[in-house]
């Protein structure tokens, strides 16, 4: 039960991190707008909430002495995934700060880079916030106002990560990935890899081969019959 909850929380955090990265990519380009900055703000706040939830759950579990060995290994794996996710988030937040400072939106002299993007990122933000549509209610100069908050939040995240490292002792090298290279190629229903999935892909492939061979044989047979018939028709007429 706890494992499922942890996994779900981690998936949510990963989703938000991916969306955040996507939006930070757009800063400074032609899709950049006050809306984007507001989306960034909301997304990272959501990310922080999820991060705190993840941390609390995982630290509670890892401190629990009554957990079995395999479970403990699994939770350590999740912990490593969580800390990597936080690293990425922190870097993206710092980059967002730097880019936000470099590309303020209301200054007429500072031009945005014409990157070829024309659409907005509201869909991405909606996915991150798990809502249908985004509502924009911020002021018109959020791009400047938000930077101070962003700085503070970066510091908070930094502190949290430091605390995490000090309090929880999970050596990263003991964690082994569950997924083999190429695991992402199969269907993406389950996050954790299963070897069954791999085999089914291979079977499908061989199946296709057999069907292809059969089709080839049938086709050539039909072709031969057609040629024979044509020759007969010519000979007899």
């Amino acid at each position, binding site marked *: 039960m706890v494992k499922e909850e942890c996994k779900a929380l981690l998936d949510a955090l990963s989703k938000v991190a991916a969306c955040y990265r996507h939006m930070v990519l757009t800063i400074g380009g032609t899709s950049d707008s006050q809306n984007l900055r507001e989306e960034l703000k909301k997304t990272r706040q959501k990310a922080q909430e999820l991060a705190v939830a993840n941390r609390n759950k995982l630290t509670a579990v890892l401190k629990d002495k009554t957990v079995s060995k395999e479970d403990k290994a699994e939770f350590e794996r999740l912990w490593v995934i969580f800390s990597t996710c936080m690293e990425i988030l922190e870097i993206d937040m710092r980059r967002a700060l730097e880019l936000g400072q470099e590309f303020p939106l209301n200054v007429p002299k500072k031009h945005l880079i014409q990157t070829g993007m024309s659409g907005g990122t509201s869909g991405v933000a909606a996915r991150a916030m798990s809502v249908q549509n985004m509502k924009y209610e911020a002021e018109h100069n959020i791009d400047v106002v938000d930077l101070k908050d962003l700085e503070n939040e970066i510091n908070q995240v930094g502190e949290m990560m430091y605390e995490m490292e000090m309090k929880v002792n999970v050596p990263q090298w003991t964690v082994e990935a569950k997924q083999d290279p190429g695991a992402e*190629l199969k269907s993406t229903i389950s996050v954790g890899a299963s070897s069954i999935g791999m085999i089914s892909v291979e079977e499908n492939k061989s199946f296709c081969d057999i069907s292809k061979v059969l089709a080839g044989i049938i086709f050539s047979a039909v072709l031969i019959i057609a040629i024979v018939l044509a020759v007969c028709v010519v000979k007899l007429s």
Partner: protein
Amino acid sequence: MGAGLLLKTQILRGAWPKMERVIVSMQDPDMGIKMRNQRLLITVIPHAMTGNDIVEWLIQKYSISEEESLHLGNLLVKHGYIYPLKDPRSLVLRADDSPYRFQTPYFWTSSKWPATELDYAIYLAKKNIRKQGDLIDHEKDNYNLLHKRINHTWDFVVMQAREQLRAAKQRRKGDRIVIDCQEQAYWLVNRPPPGALNVLEHGPERRNCHISRVQLPENTDYYKREIECCRKAMGRTRVKSSICLEGYIKFNEQYVPHDPIMSGCLPSNPWITDDTTYWAMNAPTVMTPTKLRVERWGFGFSELLGDTLGRRQLLEFLKKEFSAENLSFWEACEELRYGEQARIADIVDSIYQQFLAPGATRWVNIDSKTMERTLEGIKTPHRYVMDDAQMHIYMLMKKDSYPRFLKSELYRSLLAEAIMPPETKKRVFPFMRKQRHSSPSPALLLPTGEPEVKAEDQSKVVAVPMES
């Protein structure tokens, strides 16, 4: 070529902010580059420009030549600020109508945010999914390597790759294409395929101020130091460059006939004809010096003193003038300056006894102040204790004895007797030309009697009339 390239890239790291400024100025709606639309099958993507546009704009904005503009444009493309749309793997600026686009600021090259292994792994995983496992060779290798190297977060890599693809689906088709192109361009710059130029390559670390710019705190101490530095710099004596350059030109004009590379060497260049006569005739201790050499003694006192033969002749002359002790004193001081550390005390003592003590056999005439200082210094002898006295005697010889030497009979006769070797005539028939072979070092075969024998040899060859 490799080292030059590395140096160039190291300098260019400091130029990234400048490149960024160029890119930003290209965005100006009035003065920037004219944008066109890129038409793919169904989608139209704005903000494309041709290579020609870029070159023209650079020429106009910075008033540079086309060659320079092309070079600058190429730098922008190689460092990932602009990427080509048609042939994405070749990061070259073509000055024709091939399309280019600007890179998003997140993907600008920066030393503060280097491309991480984790990001590369996520990119490769995404590509793997999109291309159904059909990665290029070097990407496949990198993929497997990364799987081993960051195995502990590999699950995260796969998770994040999927999520990033899902997030991208929320955007329009045109934007999705642009994002793919941007990412591809970024990784082509940061993880170039093997064999391609790597603009981010670290050469061996050099003490280059562009790389290790330590930021000093700009407080009052810093500014006080700066002021002091500037004050000292203002106080330094400076020569006007017109005077400097005149002196430089005079020097070159004077020495050009004496330079073996600029004016050729007689009889012939040993490196070409394997004939070592030239070296033999110009050896430090020959019986008869060459004309050019004797002429050079007239250029300046240092030339005369620096040449062993010249110094000997000077000594002869000074003996006639009864001031030979000056030269001996100077030579003894040179020995002190450049001699062994262990012998310094002895040498100082002998100099004192010979030249400085009252009633010494070869007493030198130094002014009283310098003498006082030197005698003080002798109490604690070190290498440079005789410097003042030596300089005094040097200037004495230079101002007094040297001009007289140049006007003397001795010098004139030397000039008259000096020889000018004839140029070896090039043999007309090819099979008579001397075969080139590796000859033993001329330094090994240099008995002093040789030049005369060689001079006789030369007379057998037809003498070419010399230019005066």
